[in-house]
């Protein structure tokens, strides 16, 4: 059989500078620069009182000072530890349950009311219970982080699972792909974009809760540092911690985006920006 189409010539390696990604860093910095400018200007021209909202230069100086001390990095470490562990737990639980319930309409029908009931319960309100159960150790923080992150990922997975292209699904079924194989090869890739969004949402919500838990429970970490700074009226320091948190958020997002570009390079949202 020779129906061979001669391959179109490959014109060497891909030409660089053609991807949106190439611009990402510089223009991202531009956005940050605008934010910094606004922040510097607002207190200086008196939109908000300078004493209670210090200009960014002062905040950054404070941050720079703190960043040279060990307690700073310890607090950061504590927060990240609770965050990473809680997020991972939530991720695994939500993905497993999301796939099982999402692809079993009957189960899903029976659980929807409970899920909808539980989702709006604020993690913060669970703090007394968490402390009662686990005291002030890491498990309390984990409980809160996991509880909040779980729903975000879970709902995203449910919508993702529902997004499977029926033709792809039928193709898989007709070729005798079993349930598990279909989940792995069809449902999972379809869900990935939703899951990535869920992960990005949960990553920052997890960070927020990791901090809030420390803020209220008082286990060591950024939250505790913020409480101490607030109680001492050290406003520049409070904002320094906020900036540190924000930077964490940006870094985490960079990570997730990089991951996304790898695992979703086939997806319209990523490939559309890559090709001509």
């Amino acid at each position, binding site marked *: 059989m020779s129906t061979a189409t001669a391959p179109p010539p490959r014109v060497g390696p891909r030409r660089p500078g053609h991807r949106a990604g190439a611009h990402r860093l510089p223009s991202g910095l531009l956005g940050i620069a605008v934010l910094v400018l606004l922040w510097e200007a607002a207190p200086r021209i008196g939109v908000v009182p300078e004493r209670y909202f210090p200009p960014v230069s002062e905040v950054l100086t404070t941050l720079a000072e703190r960043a040279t001390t060990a307690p700073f990095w310890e607090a950061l470490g504590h927060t990240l530890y609770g965050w990473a562990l809680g997020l991972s737990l939530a991720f695994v639980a939500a993905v497993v349950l999301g796939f099982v319930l999402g692809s079993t309409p009957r189960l899903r029908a029976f659980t929807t009311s409970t899920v909808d009931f539980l989702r709006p319960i604020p993690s913060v309100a669970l703090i*007394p219970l968490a402390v009662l159960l686990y005291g002030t150790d890491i498990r309390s923080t984990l409980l809160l982080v996991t509880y909040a992150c779980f729903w975000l990922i879970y709902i995203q997975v449910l919508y993702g699972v529902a997004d499977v292209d*029926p033709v792809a699904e039928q193709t898989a079924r007709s070729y005798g792909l079993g349930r598990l194989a279909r989940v792995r090869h069809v449902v999972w890739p379809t869900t990935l974009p939703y899951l990535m969004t869920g992960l990005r949402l949960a990553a920052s919500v997890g960070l927020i809760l990791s901090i809030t838990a420390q803020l209220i429970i008082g286990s060591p970490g950024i939250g505790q540092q913020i409480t101490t700074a607030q109680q001492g009226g050290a406003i520049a320091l409070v904002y320094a911690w906020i900036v540190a948190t924000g930077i964490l958020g940006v870094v985490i997002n960079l990570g997730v985006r990089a991951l996304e570009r790898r695992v979703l390079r086939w997806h319209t949202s990523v490939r559309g920006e890559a090709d001509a």
Partner: protein
Amino acid sequence: MSRPTAHEPALEPSTPAAPTEQEAPVARPSRRRGRADRTAGPALRVAHVLLLPTLLIGVYWAFTAQPGAGFYTPTPAAIATAFVDLWFSERFFVDVLPSLGRLLTGFALAALLGVGLGVLLGSNARVRATCEPVLEFLRAIPPPVLVPLMIMLAGIDDTMKIAVIVFGCLWPVLLNTVEGVRAVDPVLADTARCYGITGTTRLRVLVLRSASPQIMAGLRLALALAIILMVISEMFASSSGLGFAIVQFQRTFAIPEMWAGMVLLGVIGFALSSLFELVEGRVLGWYRGLRAAHRGE
């Protein structure tokens, strides 16, 4: 088009079954793979809603009935009593209704802002690259620590509380819209371009519609988040409201009342979700139909 036409008898021997004269193309119920919610009768639907909660309450009850069950875990009966006493009184109008008002306003604003900004960022890689770090920066900041700033800018009344809600539940809508818009089918986008469908029409008939499954996912998340943020916003500069009441109960160790408040949050969540389900059913009717169509329903 499915009406029978006049048939001559088929002469070909290998077509043995002549068309039956059965009229009325009414479907008989599918004999296999009945799908759970589509074929559900009212009784079954009630079972769907109530079965698991009933079970869970039962388990919880058994747990609290043990001797020595804690102060912080009152029996369902105690919670139910507190629930009735609290919310079937004028407190409902003083605390709950205004909170609900802020909740819905905040949610609506977040939805508008999230979708609007999301479309902007989603359709332009350049703008997105510029704004993303800033947004990610803001997104990582816990809303409670921003309250002082918000108080300075927006005061202590409803504006500030709504701002907190918006700031918190904007993100799921925004992120999902961005991703939904990025994933618009290129063939469809090309079609629209060719036929000169641009501007708001393009937005309305192409971008928003094709991103709608993902936008809906974001809105659904935002709805629950809005309730949570309503509580958080009332932890500051408040003197009434459902969130305030819950925090107050917690601080004054009125634990059954606190749980009654949480139950009310859950009930509100469930009610809003059910409403949302209805809206979603309309908005995503085509989408569900499309998926069902291929399964042959």
